[in-house]
C-alpha cells in the first residue's frame, strides 16, 4: 500500500519534515507528492475524527438500507446522486447483497431521521423499500477506538 497515504490517513497532523524522516524520502518530494494527491483529488480533505457521543449536543446517526429500481440509462448512479444531494446524508455506498444502497444519515433526534426517511427518501421515484438502523454507540470509527480509554492504556510492565 502507498505508505504516504497510509500514514496521512491514520494521522494527517504529521509535519512534512516528520513524514520525510519516517519514509526516508526528501521533504520536497513529500510536499510535491501531497500537493499532487490533493490536485488529483486523491486526497479529498483532512477531517478530525470526533467522538460525538462524548458531547452534550444531541446527535443521532443511522444506517439506512435502500432497495431501488435501477434506471435503464443511468443504472444506480442517478439514484446515488439524488441521495447525496441531501445534507443529512453523510455517506452513500452501493452495496452487493440483499439491498442496493447503504446511507449514513445524521440528525439531531431519532424523530428527525425517521421523518427524513419517510418524507424525503422513500418518496424518491424508484425507491422500493427502506430499512432504518439507528447507531446506538460507536466503539471504533475510521480505525480509531472511541470507547474504553482503559483498553488504550499502556499495561506493559517495566521488567528486567
Amino acid at each position, binding site marked *: 500500500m502507498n505508505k504516504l497515504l497510509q500514514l496521512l490517513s491514520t494521522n494527517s497532523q504529521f509535519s512534512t519534515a516528520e513524514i520525510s524522516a*519516517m519514509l526516508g524520502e526528501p521533504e520536497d518530494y513529500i510536499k510535491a507528492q501531497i500537493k499532487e494527491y490533493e490536485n488529483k483529488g486523491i486526497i479529498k480533505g483532512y477531517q478530525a475524527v470526533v467522538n460525538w457521543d462524548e458531547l452534550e449536543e444531541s446527535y443521532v446517526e443511522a444506517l439506512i438500507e435502500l432497495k431501488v429500481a435501477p434506471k435503464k440509462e443511468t443504472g444506480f448512479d442517478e439514484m446515488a446522486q439524488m441521495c447525496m444531494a441531501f445534507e443529512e446524508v453523510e455517506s452513500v455506498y452501493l452495496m452487493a447483497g440483499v439491498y442496493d444502497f447503504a446511507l449514513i444519515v445524521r440528525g439531531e433526534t431519532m424523530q428527525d431521521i425517521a421523518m427524513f426517511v419517510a418524507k424525503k427518501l422513500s418518496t424518491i421515484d424508484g425507491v422500493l423499500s427502506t430499512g432504518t438502523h439507528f447507531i446506538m454507540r460507536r466503539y471504533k470509527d475510521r480505525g480509531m477506538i472511541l470507547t474504553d480509554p482503559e483498553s488504550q492504556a499502556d499495561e506493559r510492565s517495566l521488567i*528486567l
Partner: protein
Amino acid sequence: MDYKKYLNSSIQSVSPSGIRKFFDIANEMDNVISLSIGEPDFQTPWHIRDEGIHSLIKGKTWYSPNRGFSDLLKEVTSYYERRFSLTYSPNEQALVTVGGSEAIDLAFRTLIEPGDEVIIPQPSFVCYEPLTTMADGKPVIINTKNEDKFRLKAEDLQAAITPKTKLLVLPYPNNPTGAIMERDDLEQIAKIVIENDLLVLSDEIYSELTYGGRNHVSIASIDGMYERTVVINGFSKSYAMTGWRLGYALGPAPIIDQMTKLHQYGIMSSPTTAQYAAIEALKNGDRDVKKMRNEYDMRRRLVVDSFNDMGLSCFEPLGAFYVFPCIKSTGLSSEEFCTRLIMEKQVAVVPGNAFGKCGEGFVRVSYSYSLNHLKTALGRIRDFIKELEDGNKG
C-alpha cells in the same frame, strides 16, 4: 538468621539488573512518558490469540511432550528453512522453551564446564553475564564500539580468545544498540570461531526486525558453523507474544538432547496454550510480522532523525526496536542524563551502561510506542537538550 551463609555465593555475587533502578523511579512518578520498555506495543494478532482461546475451549489443558508439540517443532524448523535457509530435524534438533531466556540458560548449563570462558559482546541484553556465572563459567566481555556500529569485530574476538574459551555469545540483532551483523561480518567471525574450535550461541530473538531491506543472516548458515551453533529464537518480538513465554533452540542433536534433559527435569514442558497459538503464528503470521516491521521502521527513522537533529549523534540502527544515541556531548553521564530527563521532563529512557560498562555515554531509547507517543516524548527530550545547552552557555 544470617541468610548470607546459607545462600549460594554465585547468585549473591550477581548484581541486580541496572535497568530496574530507573523503572522504580518511573513507577513512582506521575505523567511519565516512557521510552524504556523492551517489548512490542502491539497486542498479539487476533487470529493467534483466537487459536490459543480455541485450544482452551477444546480442553487442551495438559502437558505437551517435553520437547514441545510435534506440530510446533515442524513449524519452527520449516520456518527456519524458509526464512534463513537452515535445515533442522524437528524431532532431533529442536526444543521449545519458556521464552528464549530459558533456552539461553539451558545452553549455558549444557555447554559450560567450571572455568570455561564465555565471550560476551557488550552492550547487550543483561542476562548473558549472570547466567554464565551461574553455570560456573567465566564471562569475558568484548566492548563493541559506536564507530564500528556496535558490530563485533574479528580482531576484538581474536584478542579475547584464550585456551579456556569455549563459547561465543552472538546477540544480534542487538538489544540495546539495534546493531546487526551482516554476512561479511559473520564470515570473519566464523573463520576465527572455527580456527579456535569454539561454539556459538546465536541469540536471534530480533531476527524478524531488521530494516533497510536487509534480511537477518544466521551465523549457523555460514560454512562450517552449522555444527558449532546453537540458535536461540522465540515468538515474543516477532509476533508480539512476550507474555505467552515461548521460545526455542535449534542446533546439533547431541547438544539439543542434553538441553532437553535439563528442560525436562527443570520445566517439564512449555505452556500448552502458548504452543497452540504459536503454531498459528508460524502458519499464518507472515503478514502480521511484515506489518509490524513496517510500522517499527517508520518509527525508527523518525527517532533517529530526531536525535541527530537535536545534536545527539546516533548511528543508524538496522535491527530490533531500539536506538542508542550518544549523549557524551551533553557532558552528563548516562545515569545523570536519565535521572535528569525523568525528573525535569518526565521521560524515561534507560542508561546505556545498564547493558555493560561500554554503554556509558549512551542511552537506550525504545521505539516500541505509537508514533504520537514518540512525537510527544521526542519533543520533551528536545526541550531538555535545549535547556541543557542554554544552561551550559549561561
